């Protein structure tokens, strides 16, 4: 109950932000919403399927580049651009996942990382298509028509609302996934793959399904980022980017569905706020993260649950 009230309050506060805060905050929070989709999709794997992927940036970047190329080359509509990001993330995850789900634990993590490095190399080297290390710039948001109402997404505040609603929708959809029969099969795989197999679950197939769903949402998040930044570069596929959703999930707590969303808020805001104060931001960010992970080993939501149980 407290949780539901809290979610409603936060949501209302977020709706109020554009009329109260500067464009800096509007931009930053839009990025937070995108990261929340990305981190939650990652946690479908870590928190619900028991698979530690260290290569989710690959699908994020594939979605981002697909969106950029669609707009640049075909001037696609908003929905088609986003659908492109989603489908591209899904397909690439399906192909890469086919190989990765044969492995578990550390080997799975290494393999996902290796494939993401491969995607990075392709983006970096395929100049003709991707612009290499220059990336693709000056991407403008397509017009947005909602039931005859023409909304200009070029306005940062309107795009903010659009992404807020998209993030709420995506996170709700992913929540439906984890509560569905499929979601429970994934949890069974996480808890005890052997037991799952011996009650008739073809576990590799289900790991692959989870991987592809996570890839699709990561791709969608990537396309929303392209529309936010108006610019894509190979950095999006760099292995360090794959660490972002991992950190967010650890900070927020990956045993809780909304943990990664909370983590996305804290991590993105911290990173930005510290980096405008000092060039040594990595040092301070590292210290803050260390403290969080050491003091709250199950993340903030984990600590909250423990505290609730005690009282």
């Amino acid at each position: 109950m407290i949780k539901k009230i809290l979610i409603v309050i936060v949501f209302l506060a977020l709706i109020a932000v554009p009329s109260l805060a500067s464009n800096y905050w509007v931009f930053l929070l839009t990025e937070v919403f995108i990261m929340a989709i990305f981190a939650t999709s990652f946690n479908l794997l870590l928190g619900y399927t028991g698979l530690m992927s260290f290569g989710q940036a690959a699908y994020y970047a594939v979605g981002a580049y697909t969106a950029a190329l669609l707009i640049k080359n075909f001037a696609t509509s908003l929905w088609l651009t986003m659908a492109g990001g989603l489908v591209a993330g899904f397909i690439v995850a399906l192909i890469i996942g086919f190989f990765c789900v044969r492995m578990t634990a550390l080997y799975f993590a290494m393999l996902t990382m290796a494939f993401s490095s491969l995607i990075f190399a392709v983006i970096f080297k395929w100049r003709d298509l991707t612009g290499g290390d220059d990336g693709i710039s000056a991407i403008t948001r397509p017009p947005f028509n909602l039931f005859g109402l023409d909304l200009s997404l070029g306005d940062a505040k309107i795009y903010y609302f659009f992404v807020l609603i998209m993030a709420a929708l995506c996170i709700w959809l992913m929540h439906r996934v984890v509560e569905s029969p499929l979601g429970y099969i994934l949890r069974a795989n996480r808890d005890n793959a052997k037991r799952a197999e011996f009650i008739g679950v073809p576990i590799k197939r289900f790991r692959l399904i989870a991987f592809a769903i996570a890839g699709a949402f990561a791709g969608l998040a990537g396309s929303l980022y392209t529309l936010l930044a108006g610019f894509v570069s190979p950095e999006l596929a760099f292995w360090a980017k794959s660490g972002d959703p991992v950190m967010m999930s650890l900070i927020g707590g990956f045993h809780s569905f909304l943990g990664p969303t909370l983590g996305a808020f804290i991590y993105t805001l911290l990173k930005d706020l510290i980096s405008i104060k000092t060039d040594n931001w990595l040092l301070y960010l590292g210290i803050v993260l260390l403290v969080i992970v050491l003091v709250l080993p199950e993340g903030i939501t984990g600590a909250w649950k423990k505290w609730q149980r005690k009282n």
Partner: protein
Amino acid sequence: MKLENAKVLLKIEGLSVSFGELHAVQKVDMLVKKNEIRALIGPNGAGKTTFFNLVTGDLKPTAGRVYYDEKLITGRSSDEIANMGIARSFQITSIFPDLTVFENVMVPVLVQQKRTLNLFRQAKKIGEVKDATGAILEQVGLNEIANAEGKTLSHGDKKRLEIAIILANKPDVLLLDEPTAGMSQEETDSTVHLVKRLSDEMGITVVFTEHDMKVVFAISDYISVLQQGQIIADGLPDDVRSNKNVIEAYIGENK
């Protein structure tokens, strides 16, 4: 006797597996009839668990064949074999620790009802799933602790939960690896009672390994004795009890 005209459900021919020089299971033949309760006994390291691993597709045999209901199942994957109707429990209790008791049983119910690919409904709100899960929890007497997490259960309750999980699969054959190991006398009695009831009321075929001879002689229709990977005796409980080889190899050693 009840099994005289029953059909053979599990036919095992010359089943063998070796790990290098170690011949863990050697040329084991076995016929298990429908609705039979078969005990597989033998000292530690005799190959009982390995035998289960071979039958359920967890290990590939180096030779031999397993037929289930006249279909060859050797070489099939564990999940396929499970879906055909052979369920097993593990010597080291194997449940879903972070799921509640209810969810532990709901998962195989979802598999059994072929709903695993359903993305559009909330699992716990599907009437048939709730009913089937509730019925099994009642059957094994775990309904009072349906909301407890698996990992918080006592050892005996975990063992019972595992039986509930495999029952939810609606198997025709249960392979139980040491179902009463580590249980109190009371828990053992209730498990024995449960297995007997499953056999009597639902016609389930049971193959189980067991160290407790009281349990073995209480419920078995037929006993096979395994030693160093080979069947050294098999027959009705009374025959096995008086078999010289068995007394030397196994029962004698315990007394």
